[in-house]
């Protein structure tokens, strides 16, 4: 079983390395000290299992999973926080271990991972959409979006997003004067964003209401919204009603 260890604390990593030394079938493919390295390593050196911390600088463990998408290996979360457990099992984590990690508990989790890997049906199928859906802390709206561009990873604060447009099977996200592509459906992303700030104004547009400069009627039952940077987006009748409900 090839394992990648991801934790921003070197002591936490060396503790896991030490515990894994007792497992005959385990090979450690690498250790990553942050989410960016984790994404890179998981892609360059194929592994079966990730031992993944949740709270790390820049990218959380959940964001790492989202970025890896369908290529994500099986995952065991290792964290001092117990509040992410539900979220972890929503994305079919093999297990959820609390720090300090009990050796017996780790062995049990590894055993579960072996069983999971032997049975490919329950492993990765249809995971990626689930991952995207669950990648936000419980009870909160998404604060940042993670976007891959080739080997680069962009982390956008959701407050910097102007609008999101649905293209064929991907999204175009306009933020801070740039456009980013993201593999996701508009409905999924919309559900994760703060509905007081982001409104579906059209079948293929979600708009950050803070960017609205003015609204002009365009035809019967359709409007044009001009943004503060001068560009404009179409708004449908149902979009108009949704926007009205938010602004009132």
């Amino acid at each position, binding site marked *: 079983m090839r394992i990648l260890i991801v934790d921003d604390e070197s002591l936490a990593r060396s503790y896991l390395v030490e515990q894994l030394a007792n497992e005959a079938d385990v090979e450690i493919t690498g250790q990553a000290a942050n989410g960016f390295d984790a994404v890179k390593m998981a892609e360059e050196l194929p592994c079966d299992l990730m031992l993944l911390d949740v709270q790390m*600088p820049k990218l959380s463990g959940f964001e790492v999973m989202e970025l890896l998408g369908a290529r994500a290996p099986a995952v065991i979360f290792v964290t*001092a926080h117990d509040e992410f457990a539900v979220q972890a099992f929503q994305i079919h984590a093999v297990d959820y271990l609390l*720090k300090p990690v009990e050796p017996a508990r780790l062995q049990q989790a590894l055993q579960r991972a072996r069983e999971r890997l032997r049975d490919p049906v329950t492993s990765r199928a249809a995971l990626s959409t689930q991952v995207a859906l669950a990648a936000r802390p419980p009870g909160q709206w998404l604060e*940042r979006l993670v976007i891959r561009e080739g080997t680069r990873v962009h982390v956008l*604060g959701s407050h910097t997003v102007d609008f999101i447009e649905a293209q064929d099977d991907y999204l175009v996200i306009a933020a801070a004067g740039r456009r980013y592509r993201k593999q996701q459906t508009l409905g999924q992303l919309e559900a994760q964003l703060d509905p007081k700030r982001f409104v579906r104004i059209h079948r293929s547009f979600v708009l950050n209401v803070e960017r609205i400069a003015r609204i002009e009627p365009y035809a019967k039952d359709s409007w044009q919204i001009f943004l503060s940077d001068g560009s404009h987006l179409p708004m449908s009748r149902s979009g108009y009603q949704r926007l009205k409900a938010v602004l009132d």
Partner: protein
Amino acid sequence: MHPILSHRGRLLGYLLLWVTFGALLAAVIAVTGEASLRWAELFAMPLAVLMGLECLPCWYLVRGMAPEEVPLWRLIGTWLGSGCVLLSLWLGAATLWARVLKFAALTPNVDPGMLVPLLVFAGSGGVLMAILGLYAAAALDRSRDSERRALELRALAREAEMSFLRRQLDPHFLFNSLNSVAALISSDAVAARRMCLLMADFFRKSLKFGAQQSIALAEELKLIETFLAIEKVRFGERLQHSLDVTEEALNMTVPALLLQPLVENAVHHGIAHLIEGGEIRIGAKVRGNLLDVTVENSCDPERPPSRGTGLGLANVRGRVESMYGTRARMDVETETNRFRVLLALPASPAEAPPCAS
């Protein structure tokens, strides 16, 4: 609240005592042979009850004049005066009552004048007894009261300590530190032991300070150094810190555990989000009659606005406001990659200089 009037049972008991007093007085009158026992009873009983009622308002004087709080001359003067008033009223009532009895021709041949010395004597005794009794009741009342208040205070202090524990001791801090200890035990036993001792030191000091209102800045800084030493075991090179505190500032008092949460914020919301880590700078100096304290940390320029730090800062602000009102201020400055909290507290020197250990 009047201790006797407010309870029907106590009032009955009290009046019963006075009825006994009346019976005694009647017996004495009868024995001296001035009147028949029947007349004496008819005469003395209502007067005794009257005296009982007359003495009831003395409670308010008793309560206002605790013997340990009022000079002796004033105590004696007041009571002599009120005693005389009570007694004269009572004697007047007695004379009137004797006349009524005589007018009703219930008993002939009694000269009330003959009874005056006896009545003065008995009346003074009665008033004296009533005052002493009320003083005893007041003392009992007060001891019960102070006992209850002491209990309440102890409960409050305990509650404050507990809520401090809940607020202060972030469980993740504890679990992450324990994880570090677990990791160190096999690789570096000496460092593991040092970590245990640091944690013990931190928790003990936090508990001790949690029960205090204010401490010397030097003490608070020692706690912060311990906290940072623990976090440095976790974060390693990523966490750096520097202190710039004047000798004069060290001796000033600060509200206990006011600055530690600021430093904790700086670590968990600043440094922890930086891949390369960063520095925490703590500064303090005296400026006129103010103590200026700054806690500054590097932070991620791409961080979403005000993430999570709000609550900790609001707690600190709330404490500063409730302790000093407008005499202190707290400002928060954010730049792209720096976060700074500035406190200006009234400067007051600690009573004893902190021990230099």
